[in-house]
């Protein structure tokens, strides 16, 4: 095997296919940037598929005369961002969703928000748009005012064409947008026979808050705050990705101490969420012992965070250029004590769960996601890793501070709920180790770099591994230090479609535990 970066070989293949590539300066490590003509957009996807590139993200941006449409691919930790430009008056592009199922909802989102038509798209229904704005209005176009022209009461979206089932004995179950528990809103449409799920269709967009639009015109500090609220459980992850993108645009690098502190914050966020999830998965099969124990452990963990960082969920700890709070010796001791306590507790509790036959009965083989389907949707994080997708930004495209340590990535290939349970446990153990390594590497120094105003038109692409998996954040600056475009791609966007597949042939009463094992973010998906 040669060490040749695959982008060169891929570039040759594109040449052979008659596609002219214009190489552009890359803004980050592990990232190449190309520009191609719009008519080759689908060809690009076809060649990318034969080279087994992973489709990672897609977004658009309006310039003075043209729309720029971007797609991001990844393979072996190397990213390739490809851009094409289309005329404002002829906003049409061949669809990549015909080749990559992962591009499906992303293109529908771009279609709803920019009015860019994706020709031959396999599913031309709206996605993010319900009834808050008119079909022929496009909120992310510059001419669209942020206040829009909403009706006094936005009517419900009643004409969405759900897939129908026919035949004796089949019936539909509509669920949501408001669910029975304390969770985010979204709609699930089941077709079932008896208790067996024949088909599930997700309908989201209920929590659409216009994040991309209201980001425009913000200052870097203000964008970091907003990014920290794209999905409340991933506040560190999204704030980090957005700040990383802004730092690239401003061409500044953060001090080593700030990078280590960000690493500690991100790993603590991962542990906190996994603790909550493990308990909740067990709770959804009525095993409340685990729920009580894990919610107790999570509370202990959050209280330490409140004491040290002043916020239980770690909101607003990451700022452009670095981090807000430094930590001292005593704080490091508190983190170490947390780890010691958690390891001891887990050794008790996890053994108990492992030996429990009722959990075994409910979690093993349920909610099976095959490696092929996981790969086809570009499934990320613990969902992907439980179905053999051996990818982690921290290891494969390492960024500070992960470039200073060896990141061991847990992997399972059983693809069931039990796999997604055990992956989380393994990730908790790995994260605690990382926190200790980061603390050992801490040296006195600055915790933030002074901000430099980025040149108008500069942009950055922040790619990090949040607790749910790879987060991609695109930020572009206009003049006067103001944001002109922000697009955060939460891992949920690629994981949600996998839920529609992994519930098939399960029974309706197992849907909650299937859903919890994936635990997608609605807010991060709807933006």
């Amino acid at each position, binding site marked *: 095997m040669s060490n040749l970066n695959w982008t060169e070989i891929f570039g040759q293949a594109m040449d052979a296919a008659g596609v002219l590539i214009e190489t552009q300066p890359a803004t980050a490590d592990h990232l190449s940037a190309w520009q191609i003509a719009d008519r080759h957009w689908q060809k690009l996807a076809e060649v990318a598929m034969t080279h087994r590139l992973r489709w990672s993200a897609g977004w658009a941006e309006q310039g003075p005369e043209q729309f720029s449409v971007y797609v991001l691919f990844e393979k072996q930790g190397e990213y390739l961002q490809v851009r094409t430009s289309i005329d404002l008056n002829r906003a049409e592009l061949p669809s990549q969703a015909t080749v990559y199922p992962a591009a499906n909802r992303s293109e529908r989102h771009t279609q709803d928000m920019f009015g860019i038509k994706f020709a031959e798209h396999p599913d031309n229904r709206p996605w993010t748009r*319900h*009834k*808050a*704005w008119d079909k022929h209005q496009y*909120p992310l176009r510059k001419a*669209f*005012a*942020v*206040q*829009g022209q*909403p009706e006094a*009461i*936005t*009517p*419900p*979206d009643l004409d969405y064409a759900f897939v129908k089932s026919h035949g004796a004995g089949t019936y539909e179950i509509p669920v949501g*947008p*408001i669910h*029975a*528990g*304390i969770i*985010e*809103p979204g709609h699930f449409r089941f077709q079932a026979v008896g208790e067996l799920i024949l088909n599930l269709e997700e309908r989201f*967009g*209920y*929590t*659409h*808050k*216009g*994040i991309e*639009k*209201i980001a425009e015109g913000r200052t870097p500090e203000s964008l970091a705050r907003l990014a920290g*609220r*794209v*999905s*409340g*459980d991933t*506040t560190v992850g999204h704030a980090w990705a957005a700040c990383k993108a802004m730092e690239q645009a401003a061409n500044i690098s953060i001090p080593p101490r700030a990078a280590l502190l960000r690493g500690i914050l991100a790993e603590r966020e991962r542990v906190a969420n996994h603790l*909550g999830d493990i308990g909740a998965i067990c709770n959804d099969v009525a095993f409340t*012992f685990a729920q*009580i*124990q894990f*919610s*107790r452990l*999570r*509370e202990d963990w*959050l209280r330490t965070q*409140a004491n040290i960082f002043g916020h*239980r*969920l770690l*909101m607003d700890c990451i700022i452009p250029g670095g981090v807000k709070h430094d930590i001292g010796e005593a704080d490091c001791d508190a983190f170490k004590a947390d780890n010691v306590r958690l390891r001891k507790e887990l050794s*008790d509790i996890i*053994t*108990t769960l492992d*030996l*429990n036959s009722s959990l075994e009965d409910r979690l093993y083989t349920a909610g099976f996601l095959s490696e092929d389907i996981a790969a086809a949707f570009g499934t990320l994080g613990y969902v992907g890793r439980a179905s053999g997708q051996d990818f982690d930004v921290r290891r494969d495209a390492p960024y500070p501070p992960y470039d200073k340590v060896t990141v061991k990535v847990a992997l399972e290939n059983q693809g069931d709920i039990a796999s997604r349970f055990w992956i989380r446990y393994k990730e908790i153990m790995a994260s605690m180790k990382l926190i200790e390594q980061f603390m050992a590497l801490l040296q006195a120094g600055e915790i933030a770099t002074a901000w430099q105003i980025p040149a108008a038109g500069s942009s950055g692409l922040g790619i990090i591994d949040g607790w749910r998996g790879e987060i991609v954040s695109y930020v572009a600056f206009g003049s006067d230090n103001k944001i002109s475009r922000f697009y955060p791609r939460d891992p949920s966007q690629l994981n949600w479609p996998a839920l529609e597949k992994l519930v098939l042939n399960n029974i309706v009463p197992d849907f909650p535990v299937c859903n919890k094992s994936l635990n997608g*973010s*609605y*807010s991060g998906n*709807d933006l």
Partner: protein
Amino acid sequence: MFRLFTKILSTGIVTERIKAPKDAELEQLGIEIKRHIDRRFSGSIAIRAVDAGSCNGCELEIHALNNPYYDIERFGIHFVASPRHADVLLVTGPVSRHMQTALLRTYQATPNPKWVVAVGDCAACGGEFGESYASCGAVSNVIPVDMTIPGCPPTPEVLMKGLLGLMKR
């Protein structure tokens, strides 16, 4: 099974054995809440939580009310699955326009007398998201609100204090 019971016994009741001053205060708070609930609601109050478009941060902290440290059910406060069973609607988020009708219908489905508590900065005043083509902003722009509990997100302790404030009205 033996391990399970050992763990339960060795964990003990964390709810009552915490000696930190914060938790003593919490206990006091709970007792006071309980007194009001007993007097006005015959010992029990049913809450329906509605996420009308939040980032999910507030939900995480509302969840924490049910962990064994806060164990809010011991004071007679419990969460129900239907607005038809609820005395109180606990609404989070700026109300997204796509959730506006759903929230209105939930409000209509809740029997009188009912209270609405807007939880978190977004629900109280629109927060980081404000009003836009996609967001109605504060909950009070959509349904009548009896009380707000600010915070981004409010901690479980602040939530409990807020609920107590509601009882005292």
